């Protein structure tokens, strides 16, 4: 029955050697509700999801699904009981098509052969429900991150889940995709599906959820009806201290232009002309696939121009690879941190000095002391939380990993810094720090280009916003003109 308890956690604890990931957590979820779960990175959200999905065994406590009590679940049992999870990390097979991924493990067969037609037709239906146009035949590897996430969602809802757990589903999505996803959440809720919605983003918690539970340091803190609470209260409960998700102030006096793009074409973008000034944050808005990252790749030299020109301080830049762009004073903090930003198995020191290694070496021999000094300087100034600079980057939290990416570029002292989704997957506290660093850089006269799909961030941080749509410039908005509506209108290509 709608409103009855469908899932209950009784005194769940999970202990890892030396660490308590979950500490005596009690929670209950009602059938047909959207229940948001919030907490900083490391609060224990992921561990909790894994306990429910059967990926881990709780050290103590029981889980009750539809009145049946279990000491532990297995992934299979959990699935049979109607639990489906959309994890932060994708579980898709890149070489298979979208349709094949959706039905992976539960292929529709035509005798002994795969019935591709039926699977593709069913996949198409699912995508239509999601209001996206993805060709079911296309390989997942050829899809952008945003579209891959949508395939993942389609895969989960294809299994008629009774309890759908969504772990930050909107993080990689853009405005229209997020809107489409909200609609699906609403529809699934109307169908009686219980949704556990894990998120960092305040606006979507208030848009979607009926109730919200806060966890912190592995402990249950509180549950509230969403209508009875507010953003400040939630943030306070999450971090256990006063902290506002505000965007810090900055001198808004942009100086002379440093980077000029003149009819830049190539890599899927057409005819982009814009100017970036010292001391400003230029936001790049638009949908996934609008060409924002592609434009950044052209500026950074990882892809080639087919026509047009890029001028740095009025001089034409001839860039054919990243090295040249880096030497010219351009840095890029990429969207996919783990694949493109850092080398997980190497230390903070080795990551930090990767671009500047030649500068701190004589005759190709690294000057060790200087390397330690450079790393130590940024470890301090960026407040990277680590026992030692010899720590491998894979052992750091998302926010600290992002700081290592920043450190390696700041060590090059760049003039132009491109931030592609700078705070994705980073918790509230570290987000604030990243914003402050960006402001300090702008105040120091650096030019910043920021690509963001997070509306609040784009509006809060940018001095100007250039909106792209289908690889073309849809418009440029000054500080006064920036608003959610004006960006959306241009991004959708309505004008």
């Amino acid at each position, binding site marked *: 029955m709608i409103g009855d308890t469908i899932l209950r956690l009784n005194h769940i604890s999970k202990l*890892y*050697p*030396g*660490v*308590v*990931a979950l500490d005596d957590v009690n929670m209950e979820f009602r059938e047909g509700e959207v229940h948001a779960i919030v907490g900083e*990175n*490391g609060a*224990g959200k*992921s*561990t909790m999801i894994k306990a429910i999905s059967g990926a881990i065994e709780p050290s103590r406590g029981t889980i009750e699904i539809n009145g049946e009590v279990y000491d532990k679940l297995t992934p299979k049992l959990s699935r049979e009981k109607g639990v489906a999870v959309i994890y932060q990390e994708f579980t898709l097979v890149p070489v298979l098509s979208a349709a094949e991924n959706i039905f992976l493990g539960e292929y529709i067969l035509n005798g002994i052969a795969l019935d591709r037609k039926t699977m593709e037709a069913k996949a198409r239906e699912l995508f239509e429900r999601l209001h996206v146009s993805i060709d079911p035949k296309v390989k997942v590897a050829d899809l952008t991150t945003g579209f891959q996430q949508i395939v993942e969602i389609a895969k989960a809802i294809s299994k008629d889940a009774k309890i759908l757990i969504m772990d930050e589903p909107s993080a990689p999505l853009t405005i229209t995709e997020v809107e489409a996803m909200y609609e699906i959440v609403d529809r699934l809720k109307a169908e009686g599906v219980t949704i556990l919605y894990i998120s960092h983003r305040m606006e979507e918690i208030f848009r979607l959820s009926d109730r919200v539970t806060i966890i912190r*340091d*592995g402990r249950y803190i509180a549950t509230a009806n969403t209508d009875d609470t507010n953003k400040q209260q939630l943030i306070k409960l999450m971090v256990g201290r006063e902290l506002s998700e505000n965007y810090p102030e900055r001198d808004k006096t942009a100086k002379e232009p440093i980077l000029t793009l003149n009819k830049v074409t190539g890599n899927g973008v057409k005819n982009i002309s814009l100017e970036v000034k010292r001391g400003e944050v230029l936001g790049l808005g638009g949908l996934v696939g609008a060409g924002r990252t592609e434009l950044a790749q052209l500026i*950074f030299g*990882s892809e080639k121009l087919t026509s047009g020109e890029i001028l740095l301080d009025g001089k034409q830049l001839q860039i054919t*690879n*990243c*090295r040249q762009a*880096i*030497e010219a004073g351009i840095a*890029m903090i*990429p969207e996919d941190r783990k*694949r*493109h*930003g*850092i*080398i*997980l*198995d*190497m230390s903070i020191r*080795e990551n930090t000095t*990767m*671009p500047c*290694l*030649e500068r701190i*070496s004589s005759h*190709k*021999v*690294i000057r*060790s002391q200087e390397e330690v000094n450079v790393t130590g300087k940024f470890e301090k100034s960026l407040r990277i939380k680590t026992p030692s600079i010899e720590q491998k980057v*894979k*052992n*750091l*939290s998302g926010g600290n990993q992002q700081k290592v990416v920043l450190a*390696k570029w700041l060590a090059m002292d760049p003039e132009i810094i491109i931030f592609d989704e700078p705070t994705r997957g980073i918790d509230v506290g570290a987000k604030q720090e990243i914003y402050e660093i960006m402001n300090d850089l702008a105040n120091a006269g650096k030019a910043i280009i920021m690509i963001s799909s997070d509306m609040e961030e784009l509006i809060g941080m940018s001095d100007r916003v250039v909106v792209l749509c289908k690889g073309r410039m849809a418009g440029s908005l000054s500080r006064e003109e920036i608003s959610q509506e004006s960006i959306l209108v241009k991004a959708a290509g309505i004008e």
Partner: protein
Amino acid sequence: MKRIVKSKEFAVFIVLLALMVFFSIASSQFMQSKNFFNIAKQIATVGICSVGFSFVLITGGIDLSLGYQISLDIVVTAVLMNNFGVHWIPACLIGMLLGTSIGLLNGFIIVKTHVAPLIVTLSMMTILKGISYLITGGLAIFKFNDAFVKLGQGTIGGVVPISLLFLVAIIAIGSFILNKTVYGRYFYAIGNNVEAAKLSGVNVQRVQMMAYSLCGLFTSIGALLLLARLNSAQSSTGNGYEFSCLTACVVGGVSSNGGKGTILGAIIGCMIVGVLENGLAIMNVNEYIQEVIKGVVLLAAVIYDTMSLMKNERVKKMKAINAEN
């Protein structure tokens, strides 16, 4: 101290000690100093080649042509000395230049065509084999200048083999390149995450070519010592060395998946392979059974390497949870 005990090299070293204890119990001949210097002379070539080979493995590549690089290097050097009367020093330099060039060619083809290193170097192996047999016609070339032969057979004070000094020097040079120079750092970076390395401004193609060239250079030095020790050059001489080097490196913890490993580990791996070969020979184990054992050792090492990589992934996830909490 704790760090040393926990390191992979230490674990491999324990395996080496265990093997030595086993063989010394199994055969009275094993524990003789003469035998140890035999092992040292035998592993000098594998050891030197493994230093270069580990560079290639660390960048995420492989060089299967290494064995027949040895054959061609020694055959060409031998022909220069005996048939063309070239003094042994310039002949050796030409041999080293040849080795470096073959490595560079391997690297060039791999970075420019993006064909898998396994395929490129396998093809190269067959090409080099063919060329080397064309030169010798299958016959042996022997008897070289005494000064040259002394490099492989001679000792200092009748105790320390000269080839062992070369090995030590190459280990020192290899470790220096890997740990102290930008190239070593780039080898690891490329082997771990080639995309991130490229986006950090690393000239990936040049560094990869560097790794293959250095592998070719070190291989040729190992080849020349082998030539001096055998005092004879045959096209079949190098056959199987790529296998020994691969086994040595992987046993010593240089990952066949790239990005991990040390020269020290590779050398301990060489010692294990050397002791194993020597011990089995002393015990008069059937030659074909020796082959089977060598294959099993490599397979076991590769399985262990890959499994521990997968286990690491799990540990990493757990650690991430712990770190966050």
